[in-house]
């Protein structure tokens, strides 16, 4: 994991808060992003969707392996 990412995210968060002020609803949110994250946390895909995707995928031909999967399997076979 890139160690710079938490710092970058902290900067992003700071910018978002500074530009937003406070969003007042029944709850207060420090930023637009915080409000959207809360909204996302309350939103789930319908349970039937996973079944639909699984059924559709079962009808598909098996996809080829990616170039990096082929590369690594070849290397491990050579060892």
């Amino acid at each position, binding site marked *: 994991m890139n160690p710079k*990412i938490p710092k*970058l*995210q902290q900067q*992003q968060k700071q*910018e*978002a808060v500074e*530009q*937003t*002020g406070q*969003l007042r*609803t*029944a*709850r207060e949110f420090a*930023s*637009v*992003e915080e*409000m*959207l*994250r*809360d*909204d*996302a946390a*309350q*939103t*789930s*895909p*319908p*349970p*039937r*969707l*996973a*079944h*639909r*995707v*699984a*059924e*559709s*995928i*079962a009808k*598909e031909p*098996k*996809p*080829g*392996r*990616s*170039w*990096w999967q082929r590369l690594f399997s070849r290397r491990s076979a050579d060892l």
Partner: protein
Amino acid sequence: MAKPVEAESSFVSDNARQAEAVSVSASTPVADGPPSAGDQPKWASPEFGAIYEEHSRQIYYVALRFLGDPTQAEDATHDVFLKAYRKLGEFRGESAMRTWLYRITSNHCRNLLQTWHQRNMVSNADDTLWETAVAAAESPLRVLEIKELGQRIQQTLDGLPPEYRLLLLLVADQQMSYKEIATLTEQSPDAVRGKLHRARKAFIAQFQKFT
């Protein structure tokens, strides 16, 4: 060598892409009824099942708030994962899986928005969504608050240009940095930062109209 990431990278739509976006939905089988609780889907590929489990919630959320319609968001999420499955062999690992899925999602949703059907469709937003989405354990007051806030957020996002809407939805995902969003939307991180600044201001101005 084919460049699959680039194939999904442009926001510019053409007729072929529109046709593809619509045709996948049209051929999609729809489940007859809701599966019973604890009824797990049977994945032909357990690895892809794990990808779905990890990313489907966020992909569905972005599709929902971008399109503004729960039924279309469900279809779009289905199609995004089907496309991802078909193109999985072309995924080069140059970006995170989440970023790659967002790229497919944004292209797909933009194509949908540009079709005549979408422009003329009457939305049945939020009522059906909140019947299933809000956790059953929440109090009635809290459920009402969540529903009203969701409707207000949707009305606000609907009033923003699609580009602002997408940038706000992407940056709300804590896994996404400005740099990743910049790569995904094919612009510089500084351009993303500037547009996000304007997008936040526009969101707040629009949000306050719905008090």
